[in-house]
């Protein structure tokens, strides 16, 4: 519980700063928290945000299913690079969890190594996605070429934008970790990890939707 309170100022810009750091915690956390059906407030806000992002992709999914039934649908072959990208993103989720573990056992040095690895893998994933777009482009497959390619570029693009947002947040937490802004034993990476894993799972889902289903 204390971890959550200490962690609150690390929310990303999209989710706000929580209460300004200078304020006593009671300013926004009145009551005894016993009504908090979902525990920590920042975490609840993040869960709600993930809910609304999920609905966005459910909306796209229903459009995809409807559009796929039309006569002009030409299935696209997935560039092989996408599978490598998927491995990179899943590996970044794994390194992030390892970093959290190191942090929990107060191995700050080890944690920072894995944090750096996570950031690097995330960047490589985005670069890989750009690479996949370029491969398709070199084959003459663009956004407007056919409905499948339209969905491919649009969905991967919107996912990449969310991932870049996650990376900015992640960088902010990593910088604060270097500045020793968190008390020892704090699960400083807890919230950003939740969002990061969500984006990893979302990517696996999109890959399934676009090329397996």
């Amino acid at each position: 519980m204390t971890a959550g309170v200490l962690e609150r100022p690390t929310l990303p810009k999209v989710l706000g700063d929580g209460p300004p750091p200078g304020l006593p915690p009671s300013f926004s956390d009145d009551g005894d928290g016993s009504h908090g059906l979902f525990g920590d407030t920042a975490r609840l806000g993040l869960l709600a945000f993930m809910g609304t992002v999920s609905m966005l992709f459910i909306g796209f999914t229903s459009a995809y299913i409807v559009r796929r039934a039309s006569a002009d649908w030409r299935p696209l072959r997935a560039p092989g690079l996408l599978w490598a990208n998927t491995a990179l993103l899943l590996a970044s989720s794994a390194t992030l969890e390892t970093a959290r573990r190191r942090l929990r056992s107060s191995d700050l040095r080890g944690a920072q190594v894995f944090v750096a690895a996570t950031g690097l893998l995330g960047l490589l994933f985005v670069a890989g996605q750009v690479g996949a777009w370029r491969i398709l482009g070199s084959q003459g497959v663009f956004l407007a070429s056919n409905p499948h390619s339209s969905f491919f570029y649009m969905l991967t693009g919107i996912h990449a934008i969310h991932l870049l947002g996650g990376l900015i947040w992640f960088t902010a937490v990593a910088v604060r970790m270097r500045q020793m802004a968190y008390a020892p034993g704090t699960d400083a990476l807890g919230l950003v990890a939740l969002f990061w894993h969500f984006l990893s799972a979302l990517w696996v889902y999109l890959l399934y939707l676009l090329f397996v289903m």
Partner: protein
Amino acid sequence: MAHEAHAETGHAEAHAHAAPQAFIWRYIFSKDHKVIAVQYYLTAMFMAVIAGLLAMTIRLQLAWPEKTWPQLGKVLSSGFSDGVMNPEFYAMLFTMHGTIMVFFVLSTAPVSGFGNLLIPLQAGARDMAFPFLNGLSFWTFLPGCVVILASFFVGSGAAAAGWTSYPPLSALQSAIPGSQMGQTLWIIGMVFFIASFTMGGLNFLTTILNLRTKGLSLMRMPLTLWSMFLVAILGLLAFPALTAASLMLLFDRHFGTSFFVPAGVVLSGAPQAHAGGSPLLWQHLFWFLGHPEVYILMLPALGFTSDIIAAFCRKPIFGYKAMAGAMCAIAFLSFVVWGHHMFVSGMSPYLGMAFAVGTILIAVPSAVKVFNWLATLWRSRIIYKTPMLWAMGVVSLFISGGLSGVFLGQGALDIHLHDTYFVVAHFHLIMAGAALFGVFGATTFWFPKMFGRLMNDSLGKIHFWFTFLAYYSTFFPMHYIGFAGHSRRLYDPYQYAFLKDLQPINQLITISAFVLGASQILFFINFFWSAFKGPKASDNPWDANGLEWSTPSPPPHGNWPGDIPAVYRWPYDYSVPGAPKDHVMQHDPSPIGDAAGH
């Protein structure tokens, strides 16, 4: 016991944190929910004036399409030629009237305005869960307003495909003048609006779930708080469908994709390159948002009405649990009835029947609400103050607008009535009317918490009666012309012989609409005069029970000067037998009424 424990937690220092002193941080880029609420409210009021004037111009055309208006033509030079309104301009008028009213006025004022004002005050929190996000929400909303209004000033004019923006009209830039830059600005404005509403919804949900004060269980929440809770869920789950659809529409318009445009569209002899898209897909996505959106407008009004009626009947709201349950049922059903907007789209009759059954089911929780309000009013000594008049107005409009919904919900009848003025009458009474009257009721009731003053009651009553009568005489006759076959969105109805006889009724409607519009001047005078010069309000001028009445009017930064009070009862302990006063406030620990455990 619990109260002592609460006092010990040492919250007294919280209010010692002073509000920012510089004007810009205090009133412009504020993070205080009360300031943000007023910012939203005033912006919505400004947008309402614009959208109202658009409606007046629409009515002018429908009453006297054969006349010329040289003076108006000078002011709106791009929309008139030689004093005669252009058909393209007429389409822009009703499109922008609908868009601005639904999203930028009637979603904004009750939800973003009063939601922001009341959620922390009624829940017993010092502010919203994420104050920075709250400020950012307003500063995302405002650019949305600017973008939407800017579309009137681009050369090709504002969007003109209706507030529903059905493709292919909205998707092909060369379709009509309004399909050009205006439609693009419409999409961008909507994306700003949705982003802002999402930030608001995240705050509403987390604040209500997590920041309630000690003792305020869900089943002790005022019904206004219940409505805001449900509105937050509806907004977070329904709006993404429109985000997805808007993005795809943007791609169709500017990047050559074909999500919504079918093959074979020819415009002015030019075949369009798009193929294979489905216009129906847009309709499904739009109405998946569009129908819950109707309840985003209405639920707050239902909440305000319940709280106001209890306070001015001096009686507990009848059937509190049923009232909260009915709102939950309405919110749930709103997600599964979007197809009733599409009965004439060629939908399978079996699917249509499922949507019809779901739609008519909404009548059940709606009737529960009406009967419970009537039971609360029954044999009470009603205090006829302005807020109470508005609340009773909501009940009246909810009944008269709701009944026509049962007609329209049936596919067989809807095929005849679809897109006629019967539908226009229906949604103006129930959705627009109930939401508007709810906002007026909330404004007069909670004005002390906005500005620390009271509005003038006599002027308020005059404003109510003018508005009430003009509202009905504007929208009730529309049922009749709708039955007679008058479609909505007709530039000149009288080019059809069978509609020629309806012109006098349209003229009556137009004159009523002008009276309705003009009587709002009374409200603006009352609002701005009272905000600066009205009599100072006490903490609890209506002797009501909610937590918002336990703090000074207006509440200070941090909402309570001392500790946040704990809650011991529901907010409807009026006329409790054996109580020293005729109302027991929520933070009163006396073991009577609800706190005695019944």
